């Protein structure tokens, strides 16, 4: 999903560059609005009438002025410099259309006459947009998160932007996928914990090793138990035990993050990751078939 986000961002930059070039070309006054005058131009055969390709809204008076290039977007989800007291760490962003200063987490320009969709703010974290800028915490109100998510998507979903210009459409795509990613991250306790660790600079990297042999032995034994299980009753027992472990770890994570014990939180996050894999294995288990989980 993150890769799609980057791709959308790259596409948006390419298309927006193309849009700017085309707009400048149309504004350059090298040709008139009649078809015949373009017969000699090389582009005539490919694009017969540039001005005809501008949408109605693009020819409105307030749109005729040169559109400023949009803010250079960086989906800085680490937010190392951006998190804190809401807008404290991240700079206000200027609207690409009317230059009005907006808060970094805003989705639409607050200028009533403008109200265009904004780019994702630099250094903005998921809590700024989906949980009203509250300090990042492990315990969240799931109902509020869902409400804010649905409300945000109503504002930025690309389906509502199908009749708008290219820049707005691209921004809508990027915003919408960013918000989807934010919601998925904050909704799931494991991803939320990993995100919180990332915000505090203690991200679990791919090259990290586990320093806890007891955890590994426990997980190894459980996975082998699942492989050797032959009846549903055995699997149900393993599942019950695993679910209880997951509940205990989630409670532990809440208190660890609450008391800012980050190394303990990191340990518990690792444990939760392994317990989740066990839960996946239990879920896909079928008698007589090898357990294969993909990630």
């Amino acid at each position, binding site marked *: 999903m993150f890769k799609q986000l980057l791709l959308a961002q790259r596409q948006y930059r390419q298309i927006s560059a193309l849009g700017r070039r085309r707009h400048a070309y149309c504004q350059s006054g090298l040709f008139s609005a009649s078809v015949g005058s373009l017969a000699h131009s090389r582009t005539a055969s490919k694009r017969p009438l540039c001005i005809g390709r501008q949408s109605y809204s693009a020819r409105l008076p307030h749109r005729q002025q040169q559109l400023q290039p949009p803010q250079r977007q960086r989906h800085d989800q680490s937010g190392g410099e951006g998190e804190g007291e809401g807008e404290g760490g991240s700079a206000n962003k200027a609207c690409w259309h009317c230059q009005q200063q907006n808060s970094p987490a805003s989705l639409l320009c607050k200028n009533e006459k403008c109200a265009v969709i904004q780019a994702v703010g630099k250094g903005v974290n998921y809590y700024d947009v989906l949980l009203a800028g509250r300090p990042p915490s492990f315990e969240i109100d799931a109902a509020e998160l869902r409400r804010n998510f649905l409300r945000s998507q109503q504002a930025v979903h690309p389906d509502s932007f199908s009749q708008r210009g290219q820049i707005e459409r691209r921004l809508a795509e990027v915003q919408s996928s960013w918000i989807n990613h934010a919601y998925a991250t904050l909704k799931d306790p494991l991803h939320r914990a990993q995100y919180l660790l990332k915000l505090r600079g203690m991200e679990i990297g*791919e090259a990290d*090793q586990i320093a806890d042999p007891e*955890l590994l032995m426990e997980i*190894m034994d459980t996975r082998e138990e699942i492989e050797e299980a032959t009846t549903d009753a055995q699997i149900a027992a393993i599942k019950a035990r695993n679910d209880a472990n997951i509940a205990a770890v989630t409670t532990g994570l809440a208190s660890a993050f609450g008391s800012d014990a980050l190394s303990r939180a990191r340990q518990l996050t690792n444990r939760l*990751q392994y317990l989740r894999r066990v839960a996946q294995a239990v879920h896909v288990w079928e008698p007589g078939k090898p357990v294969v989980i993909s990630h």
Partner: protein
Amino acid sequence: MFSIVKQLAPRRLPSATFTKPVAAFVQSRFYHEKVIDHYENPRNMGSLDKHDPTVGTGLVGAPACGDVMRLQIKVDDNGEIVDVKFKTFGCGSAIASSSYITERVRGMNIDDALKIKNTDIAKELCLPPVKLHCSMLAEDAIKSAIKDFRMKRDGALRTA
């Protein structure tokens, strides 16, 4: 020119992989045929008796993806690895890396086995960049197994 590029970027995969088919190298979802071979026909899968004083057990895990790998080696008095078994719960690349490393260390001296680098494993299996950490896990597994064996042996010598 190409050799200068190689020196400047020592962590990248060696040049041999650049001549391989693009699909196998670029797409992490399309496993290379060597990885598939190790996955479907794993070599030396199983376990040894961990209480045996000549057996060293290495147990490592990658927290980012939730993989766990166990590598056991049986070492004789000359320091030669006479038997090796592995068990891995993880993705195909992790299973292939551990399967390959068991093939590689069989018959090696433990001092030579310590010198195996993850880049050798990645090069042999043509692992894509996104799966390089699997080969690192295999390298750590063999190091951990040898360390465990040495601790056991030194402990036995002290008590003897």
